[in-house]
């Protein structure tokens, strides 16, 4: 099992490398060198520009620049953000945590609903409940996240207790630990709802399809013929096998969440990676942009890695490939 994990980790490295290279490439696509913008930016001093010219060997070819950047990254130096006047690493990591919390909350919320809804739809196949769920899922898939965000915000204005955005209330620092957690929780409600809805709709349908397929398979018939109780067959045999393919989706869903979270974060004002990236783009803060994209990509790879490992754990066929 440990070998399996190691293999997966080793696989992920070139992927991460590839992402860093692609990211670097984008920045270089821009006509002229990136320091031009810095030169035009009145906030940046002449000395800083000279320092950067020296440091980044702008006269050297592209590949050299890339490796210099890479070397810096490995040293932990992600560059400096001009708009935040801090190291890119600090800015990104502080916001990364927030995005992580949000994505995690959406992930959990999704799965709490997906499994029961999928099971119900499969068991009541083609009856009213199933058709209704199918229809609403279809709508849910199509509704764009930002639109949902607006609608929810609109509805929230009619209640007095639902926070309208942001992550903390103004008097946050005055709360006890429990109070702080509850406060963040309240602020999580709308963004979580918005982010989850799309996933729930998509995944519920997949869950239903998977379960139906499993229920029709010969080993379920075998278990039934041997007289195993219906409940046991459903929840232990059928569900377990139906959930397996969903685990990979788990990883991909995480990545989709990260991507979708950015826009929702911006609209709702949740201080996460998305907001930071936007700010970076607006102020042409190149290293911050790179850092954000890198962080996003890394989180994604992490998500997929976790998914792969989970799958290996649950499905022995993959674990014992060599047998």
């Amino acid at each position, binding site marked *: 099992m440990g070998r399996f994990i190691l293999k997966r980790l080793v696989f992920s490295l070139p992927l991460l490398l590839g992402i860093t290279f692609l990211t670097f490439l984008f*920045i270089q696509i*821009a006509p002229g060198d990136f320091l031009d913008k810095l030169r035009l930016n009145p906030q940046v001093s002449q000395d800083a520009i000279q320092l950067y010219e020296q440091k980044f060997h702008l006269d050297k070819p592209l590949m050299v620049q890339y490796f210099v950047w890479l070397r810096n990254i490995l040293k932990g130096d992600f560059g400096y953000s001009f708009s935040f006047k801090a190291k890119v690493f600090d800015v990104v990591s502080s916001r990364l945590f927030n995005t992580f919390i949000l994505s995690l909350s959406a992930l959990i919320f999704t799965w709490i609903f997906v499994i029961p809804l999928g099971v119900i739809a499969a068991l009541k196949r083609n009856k009213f409940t199933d058709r209704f769920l199918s229809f609403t899922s279809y709508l849910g898939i*199509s509704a764009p996240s*930002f639109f949902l965000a607006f609608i929810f915000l609109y509805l929230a204005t009619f209640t007095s207790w639902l926070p309208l955005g942001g992550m903390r209330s103004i008097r946050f620092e005055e709360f006890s630990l429990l109070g702080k957690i509850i406060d963040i929780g309240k602020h999580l409600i709308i963004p979580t709802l918005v982010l989850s809805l799309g996933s729930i709709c998509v995944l519920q349908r997949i869950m239903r399809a998977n379960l139906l397929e499993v229920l029709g398979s010969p080993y379920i018939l075998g278990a039934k013929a041997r007289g195993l109780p219906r409940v046991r067959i459903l929840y232990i045999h059928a569900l377990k096998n139906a959930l397996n393919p969903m685990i990979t989706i788990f990883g991909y869903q995480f990545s989709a969440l990260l*991507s979708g979270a950015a826009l929702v974060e911006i609209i709702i004002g949740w201080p996460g990676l998305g907001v930071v990236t936007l700010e970076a*783009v607006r102020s042409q803060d190149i290293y911050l942009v790179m850092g954000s994209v890198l962080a*996003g990509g890394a989180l994604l790879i992490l998500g997929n890695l976790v998914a792969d490992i989970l799958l290996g754990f649950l499905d022995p066929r993959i674990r014992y490939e060599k047998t």
Partner: protein
Amino acid sequence: MRILKEIIKNKAGRIALLVLVLLYFSVIFAPFFAPYPYDDDDVLHSYTPPTKIHFLNLKEKQFGPFIYGQTYEVSEYYQRIYQEDKSKIYPIKFFTKGFKYKFLGLWETDRHLFGVGEGKIYLLGADLKGRDIFTRILYGGRISLSIGLIGAAISLCIGLIIGGLSGYFGGRVDNITMRICEMVMMIPSFYLMLALRASFPPNLTSTQVYLLIIVILSFIGWASTARIIRGMAISLRENEYVYAAKAMGLSHFKIIIRHILPHTLSYALVAVVLRIPAYILGEASLSLIGLGIQDPEASWGNLLSSAMGIVNIRLFPWILIPGLFIVVTVVCFNMLGDTLRDILDPKRRIL
């Protein structure tokens, strides 16, 4: 075309196709349907709610659709409260004269579908600058709807070429290409969009932004199409007629173009149709946060940017209507794509 007939037979496909045709038709002829130019600032009517259309006024013996004029009071919170001014009546006339424009860009005319003469009709309300949202939705649709199609078409071309080449040649070329595809697909699309956008200065002209968005969207989207095409190319290249063609000395390129790609087209079509919503949403998201189409040009995403202020949503909920159009469009494309997929499903195909 056979496919078209099949789509029309399917109930969902029928509706989707109809709605989409209607939408595209309306935005192509936007100036005709719109009573006012899209950049017609009118601060006096800032954030006007949708105008009520009346049909009967017995006192003045007015029959047929008409609207009243508008005045406003300023409340104690310095907010405008609009009221109907029943002393002014403006009947709605059809095929009336309005602002000048070039019909289909060819000949000048000033006829519009409807108008109210001296009054101001805001079918779907007005935005901050008093511009008619209905009009801006029509003009904005031109951008939003076209970007989707063009972006998808370009992605398709790139995907066909890369996927076709990769699947056909196999081996290391295929391996490397697929790794690159996965990598591109792995980067969260929104961040990728932002990163690409960041490579260019934030304030470009709208035309430049339009082209830029198309480029960015294609850059993100080609990977998934390429994968699908490549998968199909791999299974198709084992076919006998490919061997025959090779034996006859046909160049690889010609084989790909004439023998392999045509068979992938139907599935590629489905893949593309299902991707168009993603492109439309991509443009909308960029414009929404101010990095896309800029004022005074309109795009559906751009129109929603005023909704970013929560106060605005509460007080002027009609500014969310462009969002409805986006949703409807997306739903229709999804329905169309699903219908196409059902039609082209080999289990149902007769050809």
